[in-house]
């Protein structure tokens, strides 16, 4: 189950490619129907390249990388992220994570999600319960 939580260790990467209807399913699942995520024409009309990913879906990929590495959802105690670059459909998202510290049964992990050179979730910090 759990990955090797030692300071400096790289945790398993998570790769996922959102298909062209992902934002529609996530809108329904989350309740966020902002048209920049689901309406191509609207997104372009406000200067976006097209429909963009929900930031909270991208954050969920960072969270999933942590729970899969740690061995279950109950191990994720906290997650803090910043949203910056726009995520797009049909391009692979890569989540990378590195253990920063381990103390009193809690690992602090730094992570980010990117698509190619664009970091879509940055400065992510997760707390993982190891006991």
């Amino acid at each position, binding site marked *: 189950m759990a990955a090797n939580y030692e300071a400096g260790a790289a945790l398993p990467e998570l790769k*996922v490619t959102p298909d062209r209807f992902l934002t529609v399913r996530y809108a329904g699942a989350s309740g966020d129907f902002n048209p920049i995520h689901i309406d191509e024409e609207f997104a372009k009309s406000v200067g976006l390249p097209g429909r963009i990913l929900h930031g909270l879906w991208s*954050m969920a990929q960072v969270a999933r990388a942590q729970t899969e590495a740690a061995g279950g*959802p109950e191990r994720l105690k906290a997650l803090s992220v*910043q*949203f910056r670059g726009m995520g797009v459909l049909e391009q692979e998202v890569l989540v990378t994570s590195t253990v920063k510290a381990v103390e009193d049964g809690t690992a602090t992990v730094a992570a980010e999600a990117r698509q190619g050179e664009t970091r879509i979730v940055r400065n992510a910090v997760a707390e993982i319960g190891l006991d």
Partner: protein
Amino acid sequence: MPVNTSAVGKEYPPITYAVGREKVKEYASAVGETNPLHLDPAAARAAGYDDVVAPPMFAVVYQSPAVMPGIFDPEVGINFAMMVHSGQDFRWERVVVAGEELTTRAKVASIEEKGGMGFYDFEVVTQDAGGATVCTGIWKMIVRGV
């Protein structure tokens, strides 16, 4: 135009959310979860839970209805067209299971202006039926050109 900070500390009415099995499964599928704890009641029960376990980020689903009234509150004064969701913090005390009823309260934690942008943070606390906190979220919005 300086941001109006008069709404700092303002609280919004609590929102009750009933966690449903099919909603948890729908959310888990949309974010790509494959852990059967989120998808299969039998697997969840075998692991000691009463029903499917919500992925931690399901907090988005039960907290967002509580934070939206603040984002759209004229007293807060966010220009929604110029708003971006800039950051998000969650702290979980335990996992949530289908069948639970949760109550969530949101308040305006801070409003600041830096470099021509407005920074609006909302603190959102979710409690279970017994009044114990299960999740605390900080929802961070930036408004350009304030």
